[in-house]
């Protein structure tokens, strides 16, 4: 902090289209919550307090994706009020699971599910915060990791860069001593292309990773998809594997598109197998 007078940094928490899980992570820091509350001024956090202080804020933690015009405007206001804007979670960093609409016709979605679609105002796409405003830092995950969140707040207090891994989930499996589910059991696993951070939970529970933390730095998603085909998945199933919680993140989006083309050229042959 560059201010001359010593004061607690102010923290604000904002929510857009999301499940509340990432901001709940802050309340789930049971061991750290009261300490954190003593070190920073929680100026705006509606889920926890009706008392709000006006901005500007030193840090804004922003959960959720942008799905309506109203949200576009509100996010721009948040950006103006925040010295540092941190996107938290898969919705804020990649558009979230609701970005599945990005491959569909949102008008059809609305018509099919609402009796009076004229009252529903949704944009055609669910996009990450960074498509609307500059974002200073991102915490990945669905949900984010408690450890990363505490590290972020600590970093902010002592003025260092937060330590977030950019390697794959595979590294976490090896550290944990988990047998590789793909090599040993032929279970499709997104771990080789997914950023670490969850602690490699899924393979430890005998199932494949489904990509909560999104693509790692420089993933070879195309090669992983080809391996899925070798394990017996249809191109359509490979598309679904990439097009999930973080499906709109660029690397997974590209892989989904690539295998989507294969699924289409496979056409009728695939229909029976999916």
């Amino acid at each position, binding site marked *: 902090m560059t201010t001359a007078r010593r004061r607690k940094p102010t923290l604000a928490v904002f929510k857009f289209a999301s499940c*509340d899980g990432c901001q709940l992570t802050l309340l789930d820091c049971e061991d750290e919550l009261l300490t954190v509350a003593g070190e920073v001024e929680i100026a705006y956090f509606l889920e926890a307090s009706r008392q709000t202080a006006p901005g500007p804020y030193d840090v804004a933690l922003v959960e959720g994706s942008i799905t309506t015009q109203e949200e576009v405007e509100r996010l721009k206001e948040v950006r103006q009020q925040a010295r540092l804007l941190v996107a938290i979670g898969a919705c804020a960093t990649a558009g979230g699971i609701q970005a599945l609409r990005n491959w569909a016709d949102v008008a059809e979605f609305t018509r099919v599910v609402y009796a009076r679609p004229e009252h529903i105002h949704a944009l055609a796409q669910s996009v990450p915060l960074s498509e609307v405003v500059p974002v200073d830092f991102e915490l990945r995950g669905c949900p984010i990791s408690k450890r990363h969140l505490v590290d972020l707040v600590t970093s902010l207090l002592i003025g260092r860069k937060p330590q977030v891994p950019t390697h794959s989930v595979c590294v976490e499996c090896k550290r944990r001593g988990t047998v590789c589910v793909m090599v040993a059991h032929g279970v499709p696993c997104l771990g080789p292309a997914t950023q670490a951070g969850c602690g490699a939970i899924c393979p430890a529970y005998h199932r494949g990773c489904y990509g909560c933390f999104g693509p790692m730095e420089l993933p070879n998603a195309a090669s992983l998809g080809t391996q899925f085909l070798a394990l017996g998945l249809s191109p359509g199933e490979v598309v679904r594997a990439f097009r999930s919680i973080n499906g709109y993140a660029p690397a997974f989006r590209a892989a989904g598109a690539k295998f989507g083309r294969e699924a289409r050229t496979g056409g009728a042959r695939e229909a029976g197998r999916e």
Partner: protein
Amino acid sequence: MSERRIAVDALARVEGEGALRVMVQDHRVTDIQLRIYEPPRFFEAFLRGRRYQEAPDLTARICGICPVAYQMSAAHALEKAMGVTPPPGVRELRRLFYCGEWISSHVLHIFLLHLPDFLGHESALGMAADPRLRPWVERALRMKQIGNRLVTLIGGREIHPVNACVGGFYRAPRRADLAAMEPDLAWGLETAVEAVRFAAGLEYPDFEADYEFVSLRHPDEYPLNEGRLVSSAGLDAAVEDFERHVIEEQVAHSNALHARRAETGRSYLVGPTSRVNLNFDRLSPAAQSVAREIGLALPIRNPFRSLLARGLETVHAFEEALALVRAYVPPAPPRAPLPDPPRAGAGAHATEAPRGLLYHRYEVDDRGLVASARIVPPTSQNLKRIEDDLWQFVPGVLDLPHEEATWRCEQLVRCYDPCISCATHFLRLHIARA
């Protein structure tokens, strides 16, 4: 003519985003709108074409507060669709899993979201600054943590756990890991009983309404995963028939639909108050005993006293979790095999989420892909009931100073522990065409 507007633009200490508008003309309430501006996320639409095994993982993302509830309703409904029965021991492990979520969700609401209203604080962090209240905030955080640890041990993490699946669990937790929780669960049980005694001494606003209480009821258990759909007005039906007894309608001011009972056209109440009122005899011994000790009068008709119902259910969840942990034998295998190749089928189920009845229905095609999905979360069922309560409640607070009246209305809404993130995802899949 005097016009007055009570507006809460952003409701605090609720999960998700909503606003409240009350219009008053000449001392008469003319309109009340609980507006859900949380944008739609179209879960039921994008579930179409996904593999049915993905439904527990994907629907969990509707709500970060009660992901276990979504996983349980989805797994049960899809097991019916696939004609699959989970192996022995899975049912108990699922109850234990659900107890963990009830504990963390209820404690979160009681202490961090609801209690500050009774004690004149803006938040639990404000309470923590008061030396007389800080021990309760610390105890609450520890209780909540125990619930979260239980969910993490069984599910891998507390928010969006990864272990539950159609057919059972991917991996059974080790006996020793669960046994290690015994001392904490015993402490939690004792503390939850203390918490109910503490809550009994609070001052509750004098307000009662005439509700139809709706919940599950099971022959010999407090309802969590299974039971029949019952109500205080005599409803007694299979959960599969839910849609025959409930009608939903879209209202212009909200992204969530409103539910009414089909037979009467009236609103109804789901959640802890309904469950306690309809299933008091199924509560654990410690919960029943502390309820008698504090002289709790049944049925609870005062929404503010839902805090006590939530407290009793927290006692129950700790006591049942303790018993389940002591008797735990890892299910082997932990999950039933699924039909391969998949078969076409349909299934519907409801379980008791912390906030009340959560209904899922799926149709699956012969490729194992979801053909249609319908999800009815508890908060959308309660929305009309909350508005009805406000119609009755608002005239009684109109003489108070504006800020105070606004605050009181906001408090009433918080009594329901509304989870607005969930409610907005209640979308109608089949539309009636004229």
